[in-house]
Structures are given as structure tokens and as C-alpha cells.
């Protein structure tokens, strides 16, 4: 049995179904993130685990105990909010020690634990500051320490980095992951940022319109999207309508341009409509190496993104994005040039639905 089980949970607000039939088993020490666009039900699901919302249907089981009807303040759950939510009238130490005081821990133990937590977040000298005297990143670290001070069984984070600058976001997300690993705490991390989800999770749950689209490791989610939504939401993806030509050999045709795919086309007939997709980084120019698919193209646009150069190539009637690493010693093609791009048959994904 998994440590945290969310079984067939759904939540209705009046007529709108914010979450429908959510099922997830989370192992102890695992960090699972919920990824999806705004309004897809991530926060609602998290709030049901925290006890702030009651599921309309389904059960939530933690460590073998059904907690579905347990009040929020009796659950062994720590929570970090997007807006930090530090108590403005208390110092950093007061915030971190708040839960410990409620649990009637001795002053000695409270001080000891508070100090431990301040060390954990690398802010030992900030104990007597007030929240308004801290930067956003520091406030969020204090909020993390506050949530962890009671050593909860589960840590819930609702878009903890969304209010911060890009630079701090990257460093703090590594810090959160480090701390989570060090403490071996089970965590759910809600985000709408795919890079965040992919970079720090053991598993990712991609959600759309209240439903789970796919659950898997970041590797699986990125490389083998199972639904059209996952394919288009995670990473930049080129997708196009195509038609099955020869299911046995994996041949499909996009407006007359033939592609060969390594995906299983069993059960499909010649003439079936499918959706195909190729990640931008799977295309190369065909100069040095030719792969399974060799495609004539016209250069439509070139965008310099720093380490990566994004080139838009028109294959047949469809424009695809192609990413190449920036190489200062290699000359880029010019807009309007004709050329050839190539990609392996593994790069051509046929998405089931």
C-alpha cells in the first residue's frame, strides 16, 4: 500500500466539476508534482489533501488511515503557499515556532527545532527579523521551514515559486528538492511551469480540465506523451494531422509528405487519421548525418535564444520548430533557403488520442 493514496476523488463546486476521478498512489519520500494550466484543478486537489476542501466523492488515505473527514488542523500535513502567508506580527523565529508552541513543546525543544530549521534554510542570522524585512525568496524559505518544523508526514507546496524572480526560482527549486531529499519527506508540488515540474519531481501528474492526463517520470512525460494535451503542454512540440499509409511499416503521410515512425500502429488501418508530433530538438540538418526521415524544407524564420537557436522550417505545407545548439563556429542558414532536415523514426510520435 502506498503512503498517500488519493482514491477516485472528485470535487464539484455547484455545477462545475473542478476535479474528477483523481487517482494517485504516492510512495513515502516521493516528490510528485501536479502540472497543468491555470484552473485545471491542481490547487483544489492539493487542498483536499490538506483538509481545506472536502471531496464530493472518493477517499484520501494517509499511512493506512482514512483522513478524508479529518479536520485540517489534525492532519499531519505541512503547507507552503504561493503568497508565503507568513504571520506578519511574528518574527521569523516566531513563525517557525508557531506550530511547535501549539503542540505544547517545551521552550527548549521549540528553540532547538527553530534553530535547526533556520540552519536547514541557511538563514540562522534572520531569527529576529519580521517578514516585511525579508525578500520574497527569503520569506518563502521561512514558510518552508515553518511547514517542516513539525516534521509532518506530507509536505504540500502550491506554486511556491510563482511569485519570485526567474533567477531565485531556479536556485530555490533546487534548494527545495535538496531539503525534501535530505528529510526524505513525501511531497506534492503544484506548478503550471513544466520546467519546474520536470526538473524536480520523481513523478509528474499532468492535469487538464479537472482530469489526470498522464502520470509518469519526467523522462516518460517528456519523451513519451500519451495524449495530445500532454504532448502540446509539456515542452514545445510540433504536432500535425497525418494519415496512416502502412501500419506494418509505420508509414504515415502528412499532406503527402511521408514519415516513418517507430510507434506501434497496430490496430490502425490505412487511411486512419492520426496526430503526429516531433520535438524540436529531434530535428537536425541533414548535412552531416542522415536518419530515417529525410525531409525537404524551406527556412521560414530563425530565432536566437542563447544556448539554443530555434529555426522554423516548412515541411510540405506545415511549419515545424527545430532547435539546434548554438555553435559560434557554424554558419546559420538564411531565411528563404532550401535545405534538408532529418529525424529518426523514434522521434516521430503517433499520439493515441
Amino acid at each position, binding site marked *: 500500500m502506498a503512503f498517500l493514496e488519493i482514491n477516485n476523488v472528485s470535487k464539484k463546486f455547484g455545477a462545475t466539476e473542478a476535479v474528477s476521478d483523481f487517482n494517485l498512489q504516492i510512495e513515502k519520500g516521493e516528490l510528485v508534482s501536479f502540472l497543468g494550466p491555470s484552473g485545471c484543478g491542481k490547487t483544489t486537489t492539493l487542498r483536499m489533501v490538506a483538509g*481545506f476542501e472536502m471531496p464530493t466523492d472518493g477517499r484520501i488515505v494517509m499511512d493506512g488511515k482514512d483522513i478524508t473527514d479529518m479536520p485540517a488542523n*489534525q492532519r499531519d500535513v505541512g503547507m507552503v503557499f504561493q503568497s508565503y502567508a507568513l504571520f506578519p506580527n511574528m518574527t521569523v523565529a516566531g513563525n517557525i515556532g508557531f506550530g511547535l508552541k501549539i503542540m505544547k513543546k517545551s521552550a527548549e525543544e521549540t528553540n532547538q527545532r527553530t534553530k535547526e530549521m533556520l540552519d536547514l534554510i541557511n538563514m540562522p542570522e534572520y531569527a529576529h*527579523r519580521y517578514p516585511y524585512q525579508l525578500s520574497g525568496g527569503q520569506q518563502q524559505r521561512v514558510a518552508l521551514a*515553518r511547514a517542516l518544523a513539525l516534521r509532518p508526514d506530507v509536505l504540500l507546496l502550491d506554486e511556491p515559486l510563482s511569485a519570485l524572480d526567474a533567477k531565485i526560482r531556479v536556485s530555490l527549486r533546487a534548494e527545495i528538492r535538496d531539503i525534501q531529499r535530505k528529510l526524505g519527506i513525501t511531497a506534492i508540488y503544484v506548478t503550471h511551469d513544466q520546467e519546474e515540474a520536470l526538473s524536480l519531481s520523481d513523478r509528474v501528474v499532468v492535469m487538464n480540465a479537472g482530469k489526470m492526463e498522464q502520470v509518469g517520470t519526467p523522462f516518460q512525460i517528456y519523451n513519451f506523451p500519451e495524449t495530445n494535451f500532454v504532448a502540446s503542454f509539456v515542452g514545445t512540440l510540433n504536432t500535425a494531422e497525418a494519415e496512416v499509409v502502412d501500419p506494418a511499416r509505420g508509414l504515415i503521410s502528412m499532406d503527402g509528405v511521408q514519415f516513418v515512425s517507430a510507434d506501434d500502429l497496430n490496430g490502425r488501418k490505412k487511411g486512419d487519421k492520426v496526430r503526429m508530433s516531433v520535438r524540436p530538438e529531434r530535428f537536425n540538418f541533414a548535412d552531416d548525418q542522415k536518419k530515417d526521415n529525410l525531409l525537404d524544407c524551406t527556412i521560414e524564420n530563425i530565432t536566437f535564444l542563447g544556448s539554443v537557436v530555434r529555426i522554423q522550417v516548412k515541411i510540405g505545407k506545415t511549419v515545424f520548430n527545430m532547435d539546434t545548439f548554438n555553435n559560434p563556429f557554424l554558419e546559420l542558414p538564411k531565411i528563404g533557403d532550401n535545405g534538408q532536415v532529418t529525424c529518426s523514426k523514434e522521434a516521430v510520435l503517433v499520439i493515441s488520442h
Partner: protein
Amino acid sequence: MKKINIWAWIILFIGMIYFFLPLISTLEFSMKMIKDRYTFEAFRVAFTDRVFFERFGYSVLWALLTITLSTLLVVPTAYWVHWKLPKARPFVEFVTLMPFVVPAVVLTFGFIRLYARPPFFLNDRPILLIAGYIILSLPYMFRAVDTGLRAIDVRTLTEAALSLGAGWGTILTQVIFPNLRVAILSGVFLTFAIVMGEFTFASLLAKPAFGPYMEEIGSMRAYTPQALSLVSFLLTWASIGLLQWIGRGRVQEQVAGAH
């Protein structure tokens, strides 16, 4: 630029005259108790009246009680409305406006009719007076607290406290009240000023409050009431000054802390 400045000063000056002229003439009149001479005789008479202190003390006591009960009523209510029933806010706000909608005379007779008969028999108890005062204080207390609650993220702070194991009592006393200190104080001082000058309730319920006393004095003497109204005016100012000083003290403490 210069021109705007001059106009601003002129308008300020006119405003000041409008505001201070009545005060100054009241003061001037109150000092004319002894013929052909300016003295503070009227003030001396007012302050040596034992009844003045009795009545004043009575009203201060009930004002403090009103403030305590009104705070205990309004803060949890406004908090609950913010956290759980935001849709009920317009309704609650309307209810708090009762003293502006229903005249005090009507309210008092309503009280007496309802509570002076079985099973209450409360007609002679000061509780009716307090009840009236609390209703009078509602618009000020509710608005002040409501504004204070808007300035903090009630919902998230409550949830943060809940997730740390806090119960409602702890949340109210340790998270909500401390963050509403300045807001509550502004409601408190307005309530204080209003209760100190209140006439209708106290008079109709025949209670020895300060408001009716001012009225009695006013109909009996000429100069003392002018002195008294100035004194009560100064007291109100002192209350508001105290409020601002406390509010400013907090800001300074915060700024000083930032270094």
C-alpha cells in the same frame, strides 16, 4: 508650480477658519462669565462640580464596556464573513448600518417594548444601554475591522495556521487580533467619542450619563456648557491623537527595525 502652492495654502486657510472659528468663539464666550474680564471661571465651575465627574466617569465606564463587547462581537463576525461567507458581506454591512437607518428613539422604544416584559424584565438594567451603544458602534467598528481584514490575506493566513495545528481560538487571538490592532483601535476611539456624547439612549432609559448631563447644564446655565462642550471636544481630539500616536509608533518601530 508656485501658483498651485499659494492656492493650496489659501484653501487650507479657509478650511481652518471654517473649522476653528466656532471653536474660538465658543471659547471666547465661555471666558466671559465674569463681566468685562476674560477668565476661566466657567471651566473652574464645571470642573468643581462633583456631578460632572460622576457623570463623566459613568459614561467612560460604559464606553469601555461597550468597546470590549463590541470588539468581541464584531471581530469574530467580520473575520468569519471574510473567511467563510464573503457573499454575506453586503448583508452584514447593511445590518451594521442600523443606527443610520432606524432612529435612536425608535430603537430605544423597541428595546423597552421587547425587553421590559416577561421573560426578560430588563427595563431597569444598564444592559439595555450597552445594547444600544453596541448598535451605535457597529458601523464604525465593522468598517474599521473590515478594512483591516482586507489588508491582510485572511484566508491564507487562517489556512497556514490551521495546517500548523491551530484551533479557532488560537487563530483569533494570535493571528487575527494582533494584525488588526490599528484597525480595531480606530473603531474603538470612534466608539468612545460617540458613547461619550450620546444623548438619546441614556436620556430615554434615564441613565446618569454624560450626554444628558451636558443637556441639563445647557438648559440651566449659560457659560458652563460652552466650557464643557470644549472640554468634550478636546477629549475626542485626545482620543484621535492617541490613536494616531499609537499607529505611528508602530510604523516607526517597523522602519527602525529594518536597519
